[in-house]
């Protein structure tokens, strides 16, 4: 009798454990199971990224290096005049963006930071989003953080903005009524048509997508996802998009940067 009761309790416990496990699978990805988009690629595509003379992203990095040293604007200053050697001064910078800006009281991403420098210190115009020059400068700065672990979102001032980004990540939207989490948390081990879904860790931006035949920013990628679920995409630089960018980076905390990455 006592033995039978013990068995029933054991079975109930097993069922509870099974339910618990299935709930977990539909939640956030455990730290140990996080994988960069790189790990989802074929060896052929990985080979393009691994070789700096085959990685087309390096073309932008080279352009960015030239821009870094060229004087521009009314102030006739180059980035290098203040920041000197990017290899030292920009190491790890991309790994902590989007970062909190005190004057604006909200987070800004790397592109916005570069444009702020252009307007305030070089006294010239901001570069348009996704323009060759802005991508080049961003890629050059981001390349200096290769191998550096992502720390973005650690600043306590950013807490409410990370939370807002997370909310947007979970929020279902568009005609297909899908949130980011429905694919990138719940179904990252499956495929959408022929393509890997991936976990959506932004380790390598700006990156070269073979589909784009160009370098592109994380915001371009996120806007493409929004259009994909038939939602209205945020404008480039919109605070909501920066918050989502911030949440994605904070979700990837500790993962090494690999900009400029190559993705299919």
């Amino acid at each position, binding site marked *: 009798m006592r033995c039978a009761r013990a068995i029933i309790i054991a079975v109930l416990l097993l069922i509870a454990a099974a339910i618990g496990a299935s709930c977990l699978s539909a939640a956030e990805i455990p730290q140990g199971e996080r994988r960069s988009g790189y790990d989802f690629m074929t060896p052929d595509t990985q080979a393009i990224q691994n*070789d700096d*003379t085959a990685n*087309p992203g390096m073309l932008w990095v*080279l*352009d960015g290096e030239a821009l870094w040293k060229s004087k521009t604007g009314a102030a006739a200053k180059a980035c290098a005049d203040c920041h000197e050697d990017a290899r030292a001064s920009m190491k790890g910078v991309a790994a902590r963006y989007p970062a909190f800006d005190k004057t604006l009281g909200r987070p800004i991403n790397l592109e916005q930071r570069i444009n702020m420098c252009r307007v305030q210190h070089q006294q010239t115009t901001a570069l348009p989003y996704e323009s*060759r020059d802005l991508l080049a400068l961003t890629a050059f700065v981001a390349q200096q953080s290769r191998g550096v672990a992502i720390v973005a979102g650690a600043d306590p001032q950013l807490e409410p903005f990370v939370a807002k980004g997370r909310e947007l990540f979970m929020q279902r939207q568009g005609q297909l009524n899908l949130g980011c989490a429905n694919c990138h948390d719940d179904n990252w081990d499956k495929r959408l048509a022929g393509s890997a879904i991936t976990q959506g860790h932004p380790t390598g931006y700006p990156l070269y997508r073979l589909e784009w*035949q160009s370098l592109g920013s994380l915001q371009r990628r996120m806007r493409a996802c929004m259009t994909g679920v038939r939602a209205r995409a945020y404008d480039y630089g919109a605070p909501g998009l920066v918050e989502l960018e911030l949440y994605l980076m904070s979700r990837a905390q500790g993962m090494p940067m690999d900009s400029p990455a190559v993705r299919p």
Partner: protein
Amino acid sequence: MASALINVPKKAKRGEIIEIKTLMSHIMETGYRRTATGEIVPRDIITSFVCRYNGVEIFRADLFPAIAANPFMTFFTVATESGKFDFEWIGDRGFSETASASISVE
């Protein structure tokens, strides 16, 4: 700001087969796409690529609209003597770029 990335081994043994890799920055616009208002985007591609080894042509390729942006070309040759590889890309709208790399053969 077109630029090329070239990968040629700095040193090689005489008679060794070496791999040469080149990447050229170019949009490779096919000429078949249309703008939102229906006008054709004019073709703008690289049409030919040549590699010369100490002045002698060792590799030539014709490029066509189906080739992706930023063409990556890789090929092999035999390292015969020390000297220079000259690369030349020619394309639509007067596109013309050159690059070079040297090799020492022992």
